[in-house]
């Protein structure tokens, strides 16, 4: 990590960039926060470890409007989001200096908590070139977990270790995929409609409409969300009854269909642990199956499947055909 800090300091000092968008050490060993570093000196608080899961692409919308270039640390999967933002003219590529940082999967502290680890004082083994297991020092005793058991859900279906866009690379990446991307969606599709309904009802009834999923989403970059304006009369702040939640989440996912890169931030930030990516990934699966494989953010020039068509496209009736077997 020191190498990365040195490089960033050099970029700041030689004037290549005016600021650095990265992560700042948290007050706990596992909660670094996204931070804008303006001086080389301030980089002493810079951190890059397994808990730096936040996708910094979206912050570049504002950062790329500032005077001078911003160096931004992007993990391989973040680079898809950045590309997609370029496609939508939301960031200025010229004002970004992209450090493609290596990634061996990011960690989910809730996985440790679920494993009974609490009262955490220190965590070690989370750095990029660290060991295969993570050690926890807690007031209730020392604990250890393997790095892979601590991974965020999204890392198990990693899109790969390649950066889609960068100015320079730092550190080795690892493809952490160990399960099929659409397995979860397929499992749901295999259920009966009533079972699916129950599943989503149970999950979505937890929703507290905090909008964290929307606000963190790099694709949800609207200046004013459709849910915050009066045009659709959908301006509801509360989860009133079962439908309200469904409507919110269907529309949230629909609005990013064809643009969602499957970065998994929505599921990561949900305070209620709702697997929100299941909506987005369903759209991705449908698009892949019906209109040909498409990965948003892979190619900033590619036409989104929803702004494209062919004469031979399937009819909407295919939904019933597929579902009814």
């Amino acid at each position, binding site marked *: 990590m020191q190498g990365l800090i040195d490089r960033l300091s050099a970029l700041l000092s030689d004037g290549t960039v005016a600021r650095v968008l990265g992560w700042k050490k948290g007050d706990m060993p596992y909660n670094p926060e996204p931070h804008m570093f303006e001086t080389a000196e301030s980089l002493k608080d810079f951190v890059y470890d397994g808990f730096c899961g936040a996708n910094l692409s979206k912050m570049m919308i504002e950062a790329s409007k500032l005077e001078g270039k911003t160096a931004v640390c992007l993990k391989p999967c973040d680079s898809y989001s950045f590309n997609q933002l370029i496609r939508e003219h939301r960031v200025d590529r010229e004002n970004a200096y992209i450090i493609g940082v290596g990634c061996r999967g990011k960690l989910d502290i809730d996985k440790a908590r679920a494993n009974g680890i609490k009262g955490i004082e220190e965590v070690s083994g989370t750095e990029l070139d660290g060991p295969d297991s993570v050690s926890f020092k807690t007031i209730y005793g020392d604990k250890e977990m393997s790095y892979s058991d601590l991974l965020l859900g999204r890392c198990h279906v990693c899109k790969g270790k390649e950066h889609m866009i960068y100015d320079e690379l730092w550190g080795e990446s690892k493809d952490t995929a160990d399960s099929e991307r659409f397995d979860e969606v397929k499992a*749901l*599709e295999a259920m009966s*409609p*009533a*079972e*699916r*309904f*129950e*599943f*989503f009802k149970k999950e979505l009834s937890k929703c507290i409409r905090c909008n964290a999923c929307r606000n963190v989403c790099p694709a949800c970059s609207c200046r004013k969300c*459709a849910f915050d304006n009066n045009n*659709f*009369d*959908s301006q509801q702040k509360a989860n*009133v*009854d079962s*439908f*309200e939640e*469904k*409507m919110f989440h*269907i*529309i949230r*996912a*629909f609005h990013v*269909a064809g643009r969602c890169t499957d970065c998994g931030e929505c599921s990561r930030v949900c305070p209620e642990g709702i697997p929100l990516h299941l*909506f987005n990934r*369903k*759209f991705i699966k*449908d*698009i892949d199956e*019906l*209109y040909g494989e498409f990965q948003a953010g892979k190619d900033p020039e590619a036409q989104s*499947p*929803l*702004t*494209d*068509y*062919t*004469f031979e*496209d*399937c*009819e*909407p*009736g*295919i*939904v*019933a055909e*597929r*579902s*009814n077997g």
Partner: protein
Amino acid sequence: MPMTENGEFRPLIVAFCCNWCSYAGADLAGSSRLSYPADVKIIRVPCSGRVNPMFILRAFERGADGVIICGCHPGDCHYTSGNYFARRRMTLLFSMLDYIGVENGRTRVEWVSAAEGAKFSATMNEFVEKIKSLGENVRLGDLRCKD
């Protein structure tokens, strides 16, 4: 549940019809006296591509039991491509509704030309029957609208 006196379930069905083909097709069904149940209420839109998925969800939220979108046949869109976009949007939306466990027969897209009054009527008769067989929309409605 909306019932008539004889206890038959009468669904509420919203049909979005594009102005150029399907609305005209519905007009033709009318002038040809090709009847279909009064449960179907038509909203005129310029093009099937105008139909925002929000409208469909809104209708369901408000207690509609079925929503059908009618547009020009592929290749015949008055605006060349609106129905193609609608086709993709609706396919994905319907698939999502199916995915969360809503009966997939509640939504439908049908291409009806200005000359197809008979098809319009037949489609609506069929759709009403389908919705009747599915019964009331309980999974998508907002309870507050039942008050």
